């Protein structure tokens, strides 16, 4: 009999159900969560350089003006929005709210994420687009 827990069980379960909205939401939450943890480490390192090593910090900021980094940061903002909004959705379910509309709520929250992302992009566009 197959074990009902552990890495193999988890992977098999995901592989079997990935087309379902609930599993998709789970994968999206997990992938964005891991990306955000990595980003958090880098972010704390970079920002603390402002205090520990002023010149180093300024040179890191210079590096961030590269369009590649701007694109990376925009991806992280999308990751944060998606993770945060799906997190609100999960918390609502924990409180018994919206349980009958789990799938619709996922897509509705993703639409909100994209809308907020574009609003944010419009604000910073003169800086990252126009220099």
């Amino acid at each position, binding site marked *: 009999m197959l074990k009902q827990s552990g890495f193999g069980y988890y992977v098999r379960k995901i592989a079997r159900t990935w087309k379902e909205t609930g599993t998709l939401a789970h994968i999206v939450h*997990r992938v964005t969560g891991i990306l*955000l943890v990595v980003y958090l480490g880098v972010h*704390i390192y970079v920002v603390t350089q*402002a*205090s520990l090593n*002023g010149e180093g910090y*300024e040179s890191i*900021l210079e590096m961030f003006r590269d369009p590649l980094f701007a694109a990376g940061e925009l991806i992280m903002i999308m990751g944060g929005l998606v993770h*945060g909004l799906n997190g609100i959705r999960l918390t609502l379910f924990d409180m018994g709210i919206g349980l009958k509309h789990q799938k619709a709520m996922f897509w509705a929250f993703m639409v909100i994420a994209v809308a907020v992302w574009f609003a944010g992009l419009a604000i910073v566009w*003169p800086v990252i687009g126009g220099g």
Partner: protein
Amino acid sequence: MGAPTESKRSMWLWILQRVSGAALIVLLLIHMVVLHYMDPHAAIAVAEVKIRLQGLTFMVINNLLLGFVIFHAFNGVRNVVYDYTSDPRKRAAVSAVLVIMAIFLFAFAVWAFLPFMMG
């Protein structure tokens, strides 16, 4: 009563993951709006980081954000690892490493910004 049981601890961590997540929605919104969207042209120079950290309001907000985000991130990693292994010894070892890493990261960031916070 002895040490909290594994399931009791897990329940508290689960609640705290929700609480910290909810707090992060508010704190990150403040963080992003104040730092990046109110004046997108402002470069985040050393002097500006310093000034921003000196006000009491921002000192409190930033340290709360730091604490909540580190808890949420490391407890999130714990949740991921718990999905992948059911071996109690592996789980305990990973939890211990994550607790140490989280405390170190929080202490490092507070230590690094102390000169700024103290003026």
